[in-house]
């Protein structure tokens, strides 16, 4: 019921919350910039990029877009279809691997 009352007056949260999230987004962006600045390579680089990306995206969606306070049926209606994108990514990874394999075996390298 608390959720319903919050909606009746619109989203009301203290300004401090937004400033804190803003600061965190700055810190996380700086961190992902330093991943490149210090030329981290390999698995460490990719996992750090993905970690900072997901944290930033989560903060923006949950707090700035107020998803954390939305009704669960709206949250699911928006977030569940996005899993289709992940399936698409998986399909295209397989496809790209196969294309690369064909190119190397039939056209030689460098073409």
């Amino acid at each position, binding site marked *: *019921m608390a*959720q*319903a009352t919050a*909606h*009746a007056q*619109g*989203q*009301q*949260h203290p*300004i401090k919350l*937004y*400033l804190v*999230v*803003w600061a965190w*987004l*700055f810190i996380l*962006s700086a961190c*992902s*910039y330093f*991943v*490149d*600045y210090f030329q981290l390579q390999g698995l460490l680089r*990719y996992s750090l*990029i*993905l970690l*900072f*990306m997901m944290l*930033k*995206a989560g903060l*923006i*969606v949950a*707090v*700035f*877009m*107020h998803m954390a306070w*939305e*009704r*669960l*049926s*709206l949250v*699911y*209606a*928006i977030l569940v*279809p*996005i899993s289709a*994108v992940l399936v*698409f*990514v998986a399909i*295209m*990874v397989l*496809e*790209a*691997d196969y*294309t*690369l394999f064909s*190119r*190397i075996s039939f*056209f030689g390298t*460098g*073409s």
Partner: protein
Amino acid sequence: MVDHALTGVATSAESSGLKSVAADFSSDRKAFRNVSWGKAMMWIFLLSDTFVFSCFLISYMTARMSTTVPWPNPSEVFALTIAGKSLPLILIAIMTFVLISSSGTMAMAVNFGYRRDRRKTAILMLLTALLGATFVGMQAFEWTKLIHEGVRPWGNPWGAAQFGSSFFMITGFHGTHVSIGVIFLLIIARKVWRGDYDSQARGFFTSRKGNYESVEIMGLYWHFVDLVWVFIFAFFYLW
């Protein structure tokens, strides 16, 4: 019968978790309870836009994974020499901070909108628009620089030809979204400034009475633009 229906609704309002989702979708009434149609439609538009950008990023991934030619190193391509020192990705980093700041001011504008503080809301929205315009300006600078260096959708001096087409397509579409966002920010900021949402003036396009939720809906779009940039920054510039 009416009584029965009312009790059904009352119990569904109290259920939580997955049960509340099932109750909402099976209620034979509007599924997104307590969510206005404007906000629900913006979310659904943003979901469809997510798919558009996902397709761009996935095609970029496919091109980059399947090419036998080395991919140009974005860290060097987007480096700038400032005061005699070459800094990797510096412009992109500044653009990221500008866009995040605009998201911060937008979130605060939404907050002040619900507090009926017209002045602060309008000023924060104008500040958001200014930061957005700055972002587009820096992107125009970046495009100019790369085009002068010979990057074209069909080739570039450093490696795989698909680099140019992916770059122009992804950043171009994102820049268009930012530009449209700036225009809409200015329109909504003007309405707030004039007090259209307090005086219940009718809109010039839809002839409907607005309210301060428009600021939040505008904010949803703006945060989405920032959100897309988070993914572009990670996958195109850093990867």
